[in-house]
Each structure stands twice: as structure tokens, then as C-alpha cells.
């Protein structure tokens, strides 16, 4: 009898099936179907692919992750993951599913904005969702993006009307609870003309079970709008986190993203920014402070599609123990994007012989009247600076911490909300308590 042999990818995909999306509008089902079709054709990412050269996700395909809804959510467990002292609209998702009990939704027509879950928006605000959902994520070649598009359970939906500035930030908390959970949260943020909004997205786990977080943030930045996105990734050391962020900017807009990968077993972030209107500015910041065996891979792609735009990229990493950091940044300047200013900088400090750092800062330029630069350094603490502090009676470990704070502070200073900054500082400090 002939037996059908299934490979790891097929088995993995079968495990993700079983969710019922038939209640959704046709247009959204189409997105899922297209993604499924792509998944069938794509290989599971392996080191053979240039984009996955330094990051091995083979274990993900071999583990029996599946979508599961959380049972027995305990109030205290949820509140433990709120950012202290942060005054914000909160949306909570557990295992990718919406938890209305802990969330503040705003859906009234008279208010200048909508904050709700995506599934609700797909029904009630279909006219707002339809033109944007899935448009930036149609990339055929990204396995994990298609995976989320196909199986995403729910996520946050934020819509800001023209000329509206939100009075306080929005905090989207994504939690994972249970064993071998595959969670696919997907947020859609739409900022209309000249509006302003700040969104903090945090990813955390309730227990220490192994999990897969495959997340997407889709951001539409309207003309003259200003959107800030802070991403805090603080999951348990058995969790794989693969995320992608997409932003499309209209003219005169500003988009800023702060990425803080703090804890997990493996974190991969793909940032895709399209500067699709003149005079727009994109800022990408990342602070990577790692110890233990954590592997972090930040990939950025900034597409200068229109003239007179600016992009600033600053990624800094401090690596201890056996941590690995990967930075792969690409600036693409289109033929017509004259007068582009694009800057990219990646600095690494390696504290241990077992830690390693891989960088691939790339420029691809087809216009001539541009100023583009990238820099990459890998090194250690400045001996003279250390000596200066030591000569003033500081212990070596304290002196190192002072230098670390200064080094990573340059990136963290871009987090302007005080409680968020404090929360992040604490996460990073915990990672370097062991510093001797």
C-alpha cells in the first residue's frame, strides 16, 4: 500500500487547521485562501534561504504548536502584565483571541477614533477595514507572514479620524497561556490625514510553556499623520516569536517604531516600511540587550519610493553569555526617489566569547541625488572610559553598567512615554543583573 509521506511543513500546517472562519465576509476569506495557497508553495524557512541564513527555525516546524483558546484566565495574571502607571486604552488578547473583559473598546461614532478588536471591525466597520487589511502583507515569499494571514484569530483595530490626536496611548497586550500554543495576533492601525496616535504593543507569556507567537502589525500612515509604535517582546525562554511590521506612509507623514526584544527563545522581526509619499520620515530604533541563549534577528527593509524622504535607523545590541544577534537592514532607493536621505547605523558590544553578532547592512540605490550611509561596528567597552570611571572609585561592574546605560540609552531615549521607558529599563536591567 502506498503511503503518503508528509514532511514537517505539511504536518505543521495541518496542526494549524481546524479554526472556523466561515462567518467572515468573503473579502476576508479570500485573504486567507490566498495565504494558504502561498503556504502550500513556499518551503518552511531554513538556513538555505538567504533571509534565514543566520536564524534557524527548524525546531518550530518540528514542534506540535496549534491554535488553542485559553481556559481559566485569572484576573491577577492579566493585570501582572500591564505596564505600571501607564494611562492608556488597553486591549488584551490571550492566545490571539480577544479578551473583552479586560479591554476598553471605543466604538462610538461621535468620538474621533475607534479602538476595538479586528473581528468586530470586520463586521461593523467593514468599509474601513477592507481597503487596508492584508494589502501590505501580500508578499508571496514570506512564509510566516502568510501563516499569520491564513490563521490569524483576532487582533487590535485602531482607526483615527482626520485631524484627531488621541488623548492617551493605546496599549495592546498579547498574552500566551497553555502548552504548545500557536498564537496569531494581528493588529491593524489606520491613522487618517493629520492625525496622531501612539500604540504600545507588548508580547508576554503567562507561564513558561513553549509557544509560537506569529504576529503582524499593519500600519497605514495617512498624509501628515504621526504614528508611534513601541514593540516590547518579553516572552518566556521557551517561546518562538516571529513578527512582521508593515507601514505605508503618505506624504508629510512620520512613523516611528521602537523595537525592544528582551526575552524569548528566539525573536525574529521583519520591518517593512514604504515611504510612499514625498517628505515623509521613518524612524526605526531597536535596543537589543541579551543574555542566556537568546537569539534575536532584526530585519528591516525601508523602501524609498518617493522623492525627498528621510529614514533613520539605529539599532544597538549588547550581547552576553551565548546570545546571538542578527541585524539585516536594507535601504532601497527607487529610481525616482531623488533627494533621499537614508541613514542606518548598527552598533554591537560583545561581552562574552560565546556570544556572536552577524550584521548585513545593505544599500540598494537606483537614484543618484541621494545621501545614503550605513555604519556597523562590533566591539567592546571603551577601555579608557572604563579606566576613567574606575579611577574615580567605581567598581568594574558598576562602571560597565554605567557605560551600558549610556550606550543603549541613545536608542531608548526615543521612547518618550515615561512609564513605558521605566518598564523597558527594568526589563533590560534584569537581563544584566548577572553582569560581573
Amino acid at each position, binding site marked *: 500500500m502506498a503511503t503518503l509521506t508528509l514532511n514537517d511543513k505539511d504536518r505543521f500546517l495541518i496542526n494549524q487547521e481546524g479554526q472556523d472562519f466561515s462567518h467572515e465576509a468573503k473579502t476576508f476569506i479570500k485573504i486567507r485562501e490566498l495565504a494558504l495557497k502561498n503556504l502550500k508553495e513556499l518551503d518552511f524557512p531554513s538556513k538555505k534561504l*538567504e533571509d534565514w541564513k543566520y536564524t534557524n527555525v527548524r525546531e518550530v516546524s518540528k514542534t506540535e504548536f496549534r491554535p488553542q483558546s485559553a481556559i481559566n484566565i485569572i484576573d491577577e495574571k492579566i493585570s501582572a502584565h500591564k505596564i505600571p502607571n501607564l494611562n492608556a486604552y488597553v486591549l488584551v488578547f490571550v492566545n490571539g483571541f480577544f479578551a473583552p473583559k479586560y479591554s476598553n473598546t471605543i466604538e462610538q461614532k461621535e468620538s474621533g477614533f475607534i479602538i476595538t478588536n479586528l473581528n468586530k471591525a470586520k463586521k461593523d466597520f467593514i468599509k474601513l477595514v477592507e481597503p487596508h487589511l492584508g494589502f501590505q502583507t501580500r508578499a508571496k515569499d514570506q512564509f510566516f507572514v502568510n501563516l499569520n494571514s491564513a490563521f490569524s484569530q483576532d487582533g487590535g483595530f485602531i482607526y483615527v479620524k482626520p485631524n484627531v490626536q488621541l488623548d492617551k496611548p493605546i496599549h495592546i497586550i498579547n498574552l500566551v497561556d497553555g502548552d504548545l500554543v500557536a498564537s496569531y495576533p494581528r493588529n491593524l492601525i489606520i491613522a487618517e490625514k493629520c492625525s496622531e496616535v501612539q500604540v504600545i504593543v507588548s508580547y508576554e507569556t503567562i507561564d513558561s510553556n513553549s509557544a509560537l507567537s506569529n504576529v503582524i502589525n499593519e500600519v497605514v500612515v495617512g498624509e501628515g499623520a504621526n504614528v508611534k509604535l513601541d514593540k516590547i517582546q518579553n516572552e518566556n525562554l521557551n517561546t518562538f516569536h516571529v513578527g512582521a511590521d508593515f507601514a505605508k506612509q503618505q506624504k508629510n507623514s512620520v512613523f516611528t517604531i521602537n523595537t525592544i526584544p528582551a526575552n524569548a527563545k528566539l525573536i525574529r522581526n521583519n520591518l517593512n516600511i514604504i515611504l510612499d509619499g514625498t517628505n515623509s520620515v521613518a524612524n526605526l530604533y531597536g535596543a537589543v540587550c541579551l543574555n542566556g541563549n537568546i537569539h534575536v534577528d532584526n530585519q528591516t527593509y525601508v523602501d524609498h519610493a518617493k522623492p525627498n524622504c528621510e529614514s533613520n535607523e539605529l539599532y544597538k545590541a549588547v550581547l552576553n553569555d551565548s546570545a546571538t544577534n542578527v541585524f539585516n537592514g536594507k535601504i532601497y532607493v527607487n*529610481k525616482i526617489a*531623488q533627494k533621499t536621505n537614508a541613514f542606518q547605523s548598527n552598533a*554591537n558590544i*560583545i*561581552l*562574552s*566569547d560565546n*556570544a*556572536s*553578532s*552577524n*550584521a*548585513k*547592512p*545593505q*544599500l*540598494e*540605490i*537606483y*537614484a*543618484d*541625488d*541621494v*545621501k*545614503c*550611509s*550605513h*555604519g*556597523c*561596528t*562590533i*566591539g*567592546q567597552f571603551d577601555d579608557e572610559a572604563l579606566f576613567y570611571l574606575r579611577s574615580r572609585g567605581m567598581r568594574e561592574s558598576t562602571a560597565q553598567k554605567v557605560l551600558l546605560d549610556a550606550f543603549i540609552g541613545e536608542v531608548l531615549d526615543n521612547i518618550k512615554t515615561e512609564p513605558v521607558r521605566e518598564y523597558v529599563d527594568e526589563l533590560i536591567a534584569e537581563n544584566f543583573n548577572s553582569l560581573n
Partner: protein
Amino acid sequence: MSMSDEDKIIEEATSGEYKYGFVSNIDSELAQKGLTEETIRFISNKKNEPEWLLEWRLKAFELWKGMEEPNWAHVSYPKPNFQDIIYYAAPKPKKKYESLDEVDPEILKTFERLGVPINEQKALAGVAVDVVMDSVSVATTFKEKLSELGIIFCSFSEAVKEYPELIKKYIGSVVPQADNFYSALNSAVFSDGSFCYIPKGVRCPMELSTYFRINEANTGQFERTLIVAEEGSYVSYLEGCTAPQRDENQLHAAVVEIVAMKDSEVKYSTVQNWYPGDKKGRGGIYNFVTKRGLCAEENSKISWTQVETGSAVTWKYPSCILKGDNSVGEFFSVAVTNNMQQADTGTKMIHLGKNTKSTIVSKGISAGKSQNSYRGLVKVAKGAKGARNFSQCDSLLIGDRCGAHTFPYIECQNKSAKVEHEATTSKIGEDQLFYCNQRGIKTDKAIGLIVNGFCKNVMDNLPMEFAIEAKKLLEISLEGSVG
């Protein structure tokens, strides 16, 4: 400067025709088209090679058959048909030449038209020229002077006969047959090349130089160069090439291997000016070269300097494996692309030994509709304590239809290494041009001035007499806007 002026200059800059395009009529002996085991046996037999080398070639051929052409480079071109290439062409042997008078006057004329007459060079700079016309060396000069010092500088096939132990020991030791698609191909069918051996403690008193030319239409050129520098020795090696105009794409897949022992230094300079194809991108040479140096022992140094102005498609990454402690690797490069040329070039610095150092300075200039990419790897292994690297890649764009790209890979696996990489891309500044114009320097002269300044710290690393030629090539490549 008005827009139309600028357009005009770009137009002029991109219309420079290849000056060294001519064919000299020399009777040559050709192998059958195509590549089979038979072809390899034919080449080996023609060259009276020993059995072990034939075996070595056949093994490479076996490996090659199982390999695929690499396609990761940022270039696109119609893939060469490997069965449509003549793998062996040699000027008919006239036995050995005692003096230059015996050399075919046609060959000598060719070199005179190139502006590098052997006679003059002999006297002029004290350069020993090992002339490689198509695939076989036909004239070797200054040999006696070198042999007094124990330096071996001869064609590869001669070395196979006279110094089989040395060849056996070092061939494929830096670039193994299976290294990549084109190195495997070269290992299978290489026709000739140069061999250079500097014995212990000898400082080579003159620059060693080889001129390569592709002469026979439809001939793939598969050179193989091997340089071995023993303990405490020094050599400066020059390689330069100009090729006649051709409409069909020609393949050039050379292999260069350098081995540097304790305290030795090898300086390898290249001026490359293969036929780049016409303005519409027809014809031109495919240049797929594997160049690699091994700093095998401590305190050794290998330095690559290259000026690349030719070829339709270039795919070249001169590399250093810094195995010995305190060894040093250097890479200085100017790559100019014009019209439809495509270049994907750079270097690899693999730090294995302690306190190893590497410097990379790469200058890319793109004009016309060309694409110019830098691709480099700096790898610091765990054991390379105190390793140090500095890389700088600058690109200059002339005209708005070209592209300049940078793809550096930086891998670091220990805590005492310092790695720096910086890259910039810009065009010639309007303020710079204005400054020159204001002082009465015409725009095209000013561009020449700026381009020369842009490349200066690479050009400074070329040997004197080479630097002059390199500057000439640069001017031809960007003619109209330069000089």
C-alpha cells in the same frame, strides 16, 4: 550647471568607445568546441601533462558536473552555454624563444598598440613580463636574473614539468576544485597561467608582471596563477588585461591562489580592462574569477589592489584567509562601470588567527545604465582574539540611470574583536563642481578631478608604473567627463 549641460556630459561620459579593440591575426590551434572528458584529455595531452594532473582535472570535472551556476550575485546576463566554448587555443608552438626577436612580430605589434612594448618595458622599469597570449606563454623575460636569486617565475605548464613537487603541493590548496562552480570549471580545463615561487628570505627585486589578453574569438580563457612566498620573502605581482573588441560574450574564469608563509608579504595588483561590450550592452567579457590568498603562518601579509574598468559582467571577490597569528590582509579596489556593465565585486576577510588585521577600502563608480555592487564578508572566528577590521565602501553615482549597491556581511564570534564598517553613496556634489567652475575649471575636467580624488587612496597603493596605466583606463572608461 543647467540640466541640459549635465545630460550632455553624462551622454559624453557614457559614449566612450573601447580603445583597445582590435584583433591580431595569429595562427592558433584550437580544441573542439564543448566540454567532455575528452576535451580535458585533449588539453592535458597537448600540454604533455603527467598522469596525476590529468586525474586532478578529471576529478574537478566530475565535481563540476554536479554543481549549479551561482545566481546570488546582483547581476543578470544570459547564461553562457558551456558546450559552445572552445576550451583550448594556443599560438602554434615554435619551441622555445631565446630572445624577443624570435617572437611572432604580430604579437609584439599587439603589445606595441597597447602601449606596453616588451622591449621598452624590459629596459624601462625592470619589469619581467611573462606574456600570456590567449592561453600559452610565448615570451618570458628577465628569467635569468630572477633565477640567480632562486625565484621561479614561469608559465604554469612549464612549472608542471620542471617543479612538479611544488605544484602538487600547492595546487588547489587555497582554492579547492570544489570551491565553486567556476573554480571547478577552471580546475578541469585550465590551459595555462603563471607560477611564482619566492624562496626563503628573498626579496624580489622587481615587480613581476603578466599581461593577459583574450585573442581567439570564441575562446574561454581559463588562467591559473599560483604564487608561493616562503618565509621572510617579498613579492609584488602585477596582472593587467586588455581585450579586443568582440560581439559575442566570452567567458573568463580564472583562479588565483596565493600562499604566504611566516613573515612573508605578497602584493597583488590588477588592472582589469576586458572588453565591456558596446553601449547597448552587446558583447563583452564575462569575468568570473576566484582569487584567494592564504596567510598560512604568522606575521604574513597579503594585499590585493585592483582597478576594474572592463568586462560586461564582473563577479570577483579577492579574499584573504588570515590563519597565521598577526597576519594582515588588505583589499583596495576601484570599480568603474559604464553603459550596461554590471559588477558584483568585493572581498572576504576570514580571521582565524590571533591579532589578525584586515583593511578594506572599496570605491565604486557607476555611470550610464550600469549596476555596481560591493559584496563583502568579514568573519571573525572564535579563536581570532584581538582581531581588527576596518571597512570602507564608497559609491559615486554619475547620472540617474545607474545603480550602486552595498551588501556587506559581518560575522563576529568573540569579544575581543573590533569590526568597523561604513559605507556612503552620493553623487558628485553640485557645490564641488561649482567651486571648480568658479575657479575656471571646466565641468568635465572638474569631474575628472573629483573622481581621481575619490579614488586616490586606492590608486596610491598601486605600483608606480601601474598607477599611470590605471589612471589612463579610468579616463577612457569615463571619457567625456574625465580629463
